[in-house]
């Protein structure tokens, strides 16, 4: 009861704490009455009962009511509205149930393909240059296609070193590397197994719809 105490001469502000005395030298130095919870209820009994009722409510609701499915819990964004017929458990049991990731989630890398199925990368070395973790290794070789200068002979990404910053995707001039798989780096027993090779990166590859060179794929022929 904040306003219940009587107005005495020392009190200046009815909403603030009860001022017991004010210093003569500096009016800002005041002795105030501190109201601790334990002074009001030394046995903590009411607080205990209140708290136990809240936790018991949560326990019984979560113990008795059916669980919300992953289709509710897996939605990205704000947590779902509390339901009356289902419990409030928020846990998503990961390997079996998965959260729907945001569209721009950066997952495991992939290399995109040309229309003829060849690797789209031209080994321009932009991504290993920009990579802050130095996790990309490219060894270029000459391309069989006379219209294309280079292609990667080796394209390796060490997923243990990768910091998932996405700068390689930003840097790539021809939409050859992407992180839109929505996958996590897989757990491995040996460090070497964490290195993604050109083959594994291409195995997740998709056709890129981006037009290379900016003016149509056959701009050289025009």
């Amino acid at each position, binding site marked *: 009861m904040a306003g219940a105490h009587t107005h005495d001469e020392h009190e200046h502000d009815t909403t603030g704490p009860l001022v017991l005395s004010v210093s003569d030298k500096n009016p800002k130095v005041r002795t105030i009455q501190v109201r601790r919870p*334990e002074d009001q209820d*030394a*046995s*903590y*009994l009411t607080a*205990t009962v209140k*708290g*136990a009722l*809240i*936790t*018991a409510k*949560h*326990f019984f609701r*979560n*113990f008795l009511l059916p669980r919300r499915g992953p289709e509710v819990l897996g939605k990205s964004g704000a947590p779902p509205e509390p339901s009356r017929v289902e*419990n*409030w*458990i*928020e*846990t998503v*049991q990961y390997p079996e149930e998965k959260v729907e990731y945001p569209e721009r989630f950066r997952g495991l890398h992939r290399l995109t393909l040309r229309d003829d199925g060849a690797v789209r990368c031209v080994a321009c070395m932009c991504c290993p240059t920009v990579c802050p973790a130095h996790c990309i290794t490219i060894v270029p070789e000459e391309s069989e296609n006379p219209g294309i200068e280079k292609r990667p002979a080796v394209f390796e990404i060490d997923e243990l070193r990768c910091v998932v910053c996405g700068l390689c995707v930003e840097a790539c001039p021809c939409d050859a590397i992407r992180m839109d798989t929505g996958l996590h780096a897989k757990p491995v027993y040996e460090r070497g197994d964490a290195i993604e090779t050109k083959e594994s990166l291409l195995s997740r590859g998709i056709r890129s719809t981006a037009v290379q060179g900016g003016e149509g794929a056959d701009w050289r022929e025009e």
Partner: protein
Amino acid sequence: MPSIYDILDWPGTKWLFLVLGLVMPLASLLTWAERRQSAMMQDRLGPNRANIGPIKLKGILHFVADALKMIFKEDFIPGHVHKGLFALAPILALAPVLIAFCIIPFGPTIYPHAAGAPLDALELAAHPNAPQFADSIRLQMFQVDFGLIFYFAVLTLANYGGTVAGWASYNKWALLGGLRSSSQMMSYEVSMGLSLMGVFLLVGSLEPGYIVQHGWTAELFGQDRWLSPANPLNWLWLPQITALILFFTAAVAETKRAPFDIPEGEPEIIGYFVEYSGIRWGMFFLAEFIEIVFISAVITSVFFGGWQFPFLDPDGFRIGGYMTQVNGHLISTGGTVLPLPHAVVALLQFTAFGAKVVLLCWFQLLIRWTLPRFRVDQLMNLGWKALLPLSLANVMVTAAVYLAFLAFR
């Protein structure tokens, strides 16, 4: 040549079956139940993964995995500790709790010969030494008049486990934790004992089995107004509700768990078993959980009628009826009876005890996961300024009311 019943009635056998066979598994299960319950209280799922092949059982097997992990961990003893005391401390913590269970009445006295038919309680009271009653198996190991005093005495020894662990670890933090543990125990043991004084006054006995079999109305009211000990109104929670709350609070403090976990303070203030690991630490941990079961068993026996199933007398369910005294034994007779075989009655009563204990364990876990830890000064204030005067007042008021009752009866 002892008969099979003599062997079954031997305290060692009963200890094996009841403490090692029932209490230890229940305490181990509590380690899993606590994690699941706390998870549910916090809108989580909790551990539900441990399995043997397809057998998952909602993760109950986590306690097996935990036990195996602790047993097969390296038994590491730091070089600087006092080796003897270091090894002794976990035993000191665990053994007294296991011993204290001797005074708990787990169920009624079983008479295997009468399993198929209702027990003749009148005949039993009149001729307790008759040859057909020689096959009795009492589900209480240690029946002595000073039962609850024995419990206080033995459980105080468990406190030495923590203090000795802190001392033997030769670690400042462990030593401080051990000292906190002993100071906390000192503040609570007094009000714990005093809060039960009202019970002793009302019932006139310190023996849990006697309290269970008599209730509080036997001493207080006239002979014609006795209630059956199976009547929930005859259990001591009703006249001694203050003592129940005080005893429960002190008992939770005794288990050294939140909100009174100042001796341990798992996450930040370091406790007395900081130097322990593996199964030695596991023994402290198990002792804590067995103590939860034990506190529940004591509160059940003293305040909630122990193994009494509501309105279930030795010969069956009874509505109405009255109590008579035969050879100093209280027997309920008359009224409308639904006779039940002795085996069914004994099973119901044994189950009732288990259910009450499990419910109280649940409640202790609820409190533990509801309240944050007290500060040391708050704890001491609660112990010395709230619990102690209240328990003294409870003794005084109970005595005054008791005297007034006797005077005006």
